């Protein structure tokens, strides 16, 4: 069971959302809560069934090796070591997600076009392109997107001086 804890991530997340949902709607009229309550009860039962099934399974090393996030040897060591190894293996994906969150912040403050430019300048190197190439391709792509949004007159946020 200990080595299959990652199988419980999705059930745990869904159950967490379901609990938060229930906290907001409890005590409301019957028509408001009837269907959500039925779904939450069913969801909780299914989560329990998944947990029960996983707890009955023996640790499956072969299956662990097949999962994308588990390179050979990744399951050895303590939990912090495993986490560090996982972060190292997925640094590019983590980098992309961080850049996307940064894009969201830049989008609101600097507008679509500047956010695109900054995102592309950083995302290309994160994907494995050299910095000089990233500046060139990033600028070209951002200009192309600017042209497209102008052409179809898409209402995107911009900074006052653009």
């Amino acid at each position, binding site marked *: 069971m200990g080595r299959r804890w*990652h*199988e419980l*991530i*999705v*059930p745990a*997340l*869904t159950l967490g*959302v*379901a609990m*938060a*949902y229930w906290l*907001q*709607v409890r005590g*409301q*009229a019957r*028509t*408001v809560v*009837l*269907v*959500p309550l039925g*779904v*939450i009860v*069913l*969801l909780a039962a*299914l*989560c329990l*069934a*998944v947990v029960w*099934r996983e707890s009955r399974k023996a640790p499956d090393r072969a299956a662990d090796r097949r*999962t*994308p*996030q588990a390179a050979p040897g990744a399951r050895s060591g303590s939990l912090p070591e495993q986490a560090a190894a996982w972060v190292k293996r997925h640094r*590019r*994906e983590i980098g*992309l*997600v961080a850049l*996307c*969150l940064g*894009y*969201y912040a830049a*989008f*609101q403050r600097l507008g*679509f076009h500047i956010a695109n430019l900054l*995102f*592309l300048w950083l*995302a*290309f190197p*994160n*994907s*494995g*392109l050299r910095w000089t190439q990233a500046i060139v*391709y*990033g600028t070209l*792509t951002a200009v192309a*997107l600017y042209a497209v949004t102008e052409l*179809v007159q*898409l*209402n*995107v*946020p911009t900074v006052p001086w653009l």
Partner: protein
Amino acid sequence: MYDAQAILGGLHNLFDLGTLFWLLAGFGMGFVVGAIPGFNDANLMAILLPFTLLLDPTDAIVAMTALYCSAQAAGSIPAILINIPGTPGTSATCLEGYPLARQGRAAFALGVSFAASTVGALFGAFTSIAIAPVLGTFALQFGPAEMFMLGVFGLSVVSSLTGDDTLKGLLITCFGLLISLVGMDSMQGFPRGTFGILELYDGLPMIPVLIGLFGFSEILFLMKRTRIAQTAAPGARSFREVVDGMKQALRYKTTLLRSSVIGTMIGIVPGAGAAIGSFVAYSQAKQWSKTPEKFGKGHPDGLVATDSANNAVACGALVPTLTLGLPGSSSTTLMLAALFLHGVRPGPRFFINFQTEAYTILFSLVLASLLIMLFGLPLARHFQAVAFVPTRFLVPIVAVLLFLGAYAWRYFAFDIILMIVFGLFGALCKVYNYPVPALLLAIILGPMIESNFLRAIRIGGYGTFFQSELSIILMLLTALSLVGPPVLRYRNSRTLKTGAGQ
């Protein structure tokens, strides 16, 4: 049942110059994407969907239909050239297509494949035109109880058949149902599951959710590879050989007809899928062949069977999608979402309320089927190159398009964050084998299921679900679709164990 005015209206819509242009554009994009292994038509449809909102609804729907149809045929290109199916439905194409390519007859195999695909798709499209209105008329008998049961049946089919694990399928379907009930409830106007976020009061916006689940999650996986396809393809240069392949395919008349019939029938069953259709057609072709020993070594007869069947399945699958609102695959789920977003609501009243649109879709399917042969052959060799574009260029550019797509639906910056959150959740689902199409379908059908459930119990209490024969039949089918796949899997594993023991 067959309204001549609606049929003519459908044809008139289609043969507008602008509409034809978008049909060609959709066809071209579907062809590119179908030729890329691992990046299927559902992913592209998810990315393109917000941009189609800039188009006239008819143009958008026609483009999406053409994209859907051409992607199925183009999936055979990588299956033949590099032994990797471009779409799940073309898995069986590898059995005969790749051996032919290894013999240096790649162009011949492409010719056979496209001719068979065209015949299969045309058969499926014409059969759909004939059957869909009949099924639509039958579906008019559905009241709230039947509609509720139909929705539940659709979810049960997709949750149990689109993954290997029914339990996980059901869990993710329930979660999809729950989050589909986010937003103000229709009866009292009480905000449910919004947590004070104003942007969620109208419910979860479908486009950012859909782009996140299918698009953003996919680019996270693309980062692991340097190119989408890693294996170099053997050359497929000779156009003469392509034409020879086409002529050869058309000589297998019985196989073409049998496989097209099998494919269409399997396609009409929600959730059965193109992979099943093509494997069944392949086994039948082998069984009836005078030279079964040549199968598996590059026999054109086998390639004709697989490719005519998988394209017929794709066309047949649109029948339950349009008339019952029951999609059986991620591509048809995306088609359903596209129609919803353009104000066209598939379901039992589809052939009453949207008759002209229905015929426009079905005729565009016929036209796209013909284009497979006309444009497929010259394009096949060149579009294959897309699979070799380095992902270090692809990922950042696609990411920006996803941001734009998520934002452009409602012009809320919040939708970008929502897209990222659902993208991460979609990636988790894919890693742990939770069927993402089931989640999406639950999000689409959830509000319809809830409103019909509440309406049904208000009319006749809980007993209303047991009062009509249709409702009981749907209930039994739901039980069958939930129990059947695990039982079959258990029986298969027992057979394998017994075989290994002997």
